[in-house]
């Protein structure tokens, strides 16, 4: 309520300030004051008749009042006029889902995330799929091409792209059979990852060169493919670097989330895992990426239920090249807690190559700063100077710094009634308030590297910390 009062005070100074009116409308919606919200959004439209955000919120209000058909009509109009406005497609997907139209919902959802990948919601997708909105192989709603999607807001949907090329995609058919979907095409390579040269070189040596010079490596008894474990503090780009690795070797990238495997029915999780590996083998060359792999490959000593143990045994058996043909399948695992992995996974033929992904280095931090500042009213930004001050900060920490600085600027804006830019000084001030989250990880990692490093797995951590044992 205090926010609403502050906004009203700010608007008293600047009554036609659309960004402030939008904030007031949102605040009313958060406080369930729908009538006040409606009045505010109407006021915005009287100032700026085509304002897409106000139109979107009005559609949402109509839906909340139970007038879904009217809301859908308004959204159809908005989609036609503003086809690149991702949030409108997403709301339309939700409304279609509410009407029980799973296929339609899926089409709108795919359009929304193609335009803005950040809008992706596993929960919503799951509900859409349950309502029949599955990606189909040959008819009905088609898989949306990913080629224009990027990780950053502002990417656009290419209406001229030929959807038909996916019509006969056997991969999509297999996915549908499995009732799963994967990110398929990596949209990154090493050029998209700023800095982190040490990690890239490590990956080239341990993954790329063996795959590119398969025969040469085989002559020395080394093989391409197999398993590589990426470990390091959270929020430091393990997933991004995995995607980029797949992009570098031009392989199909299958990112497998924990939720895609875990199933409450006994035996079902193991079955799903096997099917995923089978799919990867059929589609080789494939990079099979397991995020949070420590949950799937946990130390069996830590498991109290036999159900968990059988899943681990299954995973081991799938990774074992002796029991299955894994040529051309590169298994990448990412974890914050490599010490919780069952030691059987670290034996030859499984995750036998470990790559430490440290917090972003200075060039990488500079890149992150630039990405964070993109599209925000930042004044006098010196990314290099700011990056220099952010040693040990993860990508998530840098985002927290920007969030805090933006909140401070917003607070100022509300008091003054005009847009107040975020300054370098404000960012530096926020950086002092946010503590690097990686330090906590290194506290734990140091203990494991000092006392449980009999095989030298964590030597890279010791080297990073400058500790000589």
């Amino acid at each position, binding site marked *: 309520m205090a926010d609403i009062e502050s906004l009203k005070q700010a608007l008293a100074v600047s009554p036609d300030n659309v960004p402030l009116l939008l904030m007031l409308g949102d605040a009313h919606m958060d406080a369930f004051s729908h009538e006040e919200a409606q009045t505010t959004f109407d006021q915005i439209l009287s100032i700026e008749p085509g304002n897409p955000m106000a139109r979107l919120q009005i559609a949402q209000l109509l839906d909340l009042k139970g007038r879904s058909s009217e809301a859908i009509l308004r959204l159809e109009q908005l989609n036609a006029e503003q086809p690149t406005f991702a949030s409108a497609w997403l709301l339309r997907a939700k409304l279609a889902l509410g009407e029980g139209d799973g296929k339609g919902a899926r089409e709108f959802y795919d359009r929304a995330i193609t335009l803005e990948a950040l809008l992706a919601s596993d929960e919503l997708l799951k509900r859409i799929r349950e309502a029949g909105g599955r990606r189909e192989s040959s008819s009905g709603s088609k898989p949306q091409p990913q080629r224009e999607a990027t990780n950053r807001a502002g990417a656009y949907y290419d209406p001229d792209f030929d959807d038909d090329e996916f019509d006969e995609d056997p991969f999509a058919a297999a996915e549908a059979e499995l009732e799963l979907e994967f990110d398929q095409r990596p949209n990154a390579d090493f050029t998209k990852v700023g800095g982190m040269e040490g990690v890239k070189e490590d990956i080239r040596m341990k993954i790329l060169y063996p795959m590119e010079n398969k025969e040469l490596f085989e002559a020395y008894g080394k093989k391409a493919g197999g398993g590589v474990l990426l470990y390091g503090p959270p929020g430091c780009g393990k997933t991004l670097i995995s995607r980029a690795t797949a992009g570098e070797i031009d392989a199909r990238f299958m990112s497998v989330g*924990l939720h895609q495997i*875990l*199933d*409450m029915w006994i035996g079902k*999780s193991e079955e799903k895992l096997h099917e995923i590996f089978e799919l990867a083998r059929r589609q080789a060359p494939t990079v099979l990426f397991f995020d949070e792999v*420590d*949950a799937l490959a*946990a*130390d069996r*000593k*830590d*498991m*109290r*239920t036999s*159900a*968990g143990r059988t*899943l681990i045994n299954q995973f081991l058996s799938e990774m074992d090249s002796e029991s299955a043909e894994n040529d051309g399948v590169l298994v990448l695992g990412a974890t914050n*807690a490599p*010490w*919780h992995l069952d030691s059987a996974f670290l034996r030859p033929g499984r995750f036998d190559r470990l790559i430490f992904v440290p917090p972003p280095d200075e060039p990488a931090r500079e890149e992150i700063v630039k990405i964070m500042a993109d599209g925000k009213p930042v004044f006098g930004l010196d990314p290099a100077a700011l990056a220099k001050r952010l040693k040990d900060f993860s990508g998530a920490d840098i985002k927290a710094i920007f969030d805090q600085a933006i909140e401070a600027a917003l607070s100022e804006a509300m008091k003054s009634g005009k847009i107040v830019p975020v300054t370098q000084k404000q960012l530096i001030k926020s950086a002092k308030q946010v503590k690097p989250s990686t330090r906590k990880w290194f506290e*734990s990692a140091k*203990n*494991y590297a*000092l*006392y*449980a490093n*009999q095989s030298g797995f964590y030597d890279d951590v010791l080297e990073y910390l400058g*500790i*000589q*044992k």
Partner: protein
Amino acid sequence: MSELNHGILLQDQGRLEEAEAIFYSVLAREPENDSVYSRLALCQLNQSGKKQKALESIGEAIRFQPEAPFYHAVKSLILSALHKGKEALESADTAIALDPEDAFPLAAKAAAYCELDQWAKVEEWCIKALQIDSDNTMAANLLTHSLRLQGKSDQNAIAVEQLLAASPEDSFAHVNAGWSALQRGDSRQAETHFREALRLEPESGSARDGLIESFRARSWFYRIYLSYCFFMQRFTGGKQWGIIIGIYVAYQLMRRWLETINPMIAAVFVFLWLGLILWVWLAPGIGNFLILMDRSARLALRPGERRQGLAVGGGLVFGITAVAIGFGLSIDPLLTGGIGLIASTVPASLTFGNESRKGRGIFGSVTVAVYAMTLFVVFKLWLDPPGSELDQVTKTLSGFVLLAALLCTWLGNVKSLREAEVT
């Protein structure tokens, strides 16, 4: 494996914060699931600053299932961790009344007696728990702990042997074995056990603390200090104060009696007494200073312990050197600086690595005052003409500061000024 099972796995792996988040998420869907509340409570119990939350969580579990002895036993453990020994006993009794044949509530009762420093009772209830379930590692560990603190070395040695035979992969069993070895004065054996405990559980605070103690105990003077600590541990807080006051009264009587015989002998006695006091308070800091000299061992020290080692060990080395040179060559500023540095080591040893915020504030202020006063007097003596005396104000202030440093040796016995407040 469901979300709940994932949470349980994280809890078993010791990733308590992550497990806690998952349990909250499960509770959002199943707000009346008492077993999830009890798991949540156990997660919170083992994280610092969340004991009070743990009590609330187990309260919820009991609300939904008041007849479950396990929940009352968990509540007892939480109350023990909150230093509420008597209430912990009541909860343990409730759990035992609900199921007298369950070993866990009996072990929880032993843990409550631990909190009350009643070691004989701890032993009694651990034996009762082990009679029902000989594999109860909590009771077995508490038993070895209580035997060691009662000075029952032979029984303790047997208990430790049995414990290690039954649970060779239990980190806490090795911690117990390490402490037993330390009490026997075998620091090498202790080091081996603590290293093994850390290999099994690298984040175990008790194993790391034990390893530090075993490093310190490499020197004979620290082993004497440890023997004193082990002796004092046998008694409850009140009795410990009684012993300290008794020793002080005995010292005063002895000093007065010696003064009547020969003032010189009395002066030597006072000097020895002050040395003993300093030794008791400075031993950990000197121990850390010696660890700092070892390239491998120093990696185990926390930043606070490193600072303590530098402030105390460094203060003593430089202080004694300055006193010796200053006295030998009659350089007053150097002599005064040396005395100041030596005096600073007492509050400094209580400042760095102190877990009590209040304690750090008080002892830290005294340390700063001693450093400031020393610097002031040294510069004054340096700048004043040779042979001139200090003015009365400076002398009085210096006296107060030295008295404050000496007072720290008494204040250091107040538990709340040395231990973190449990929340």
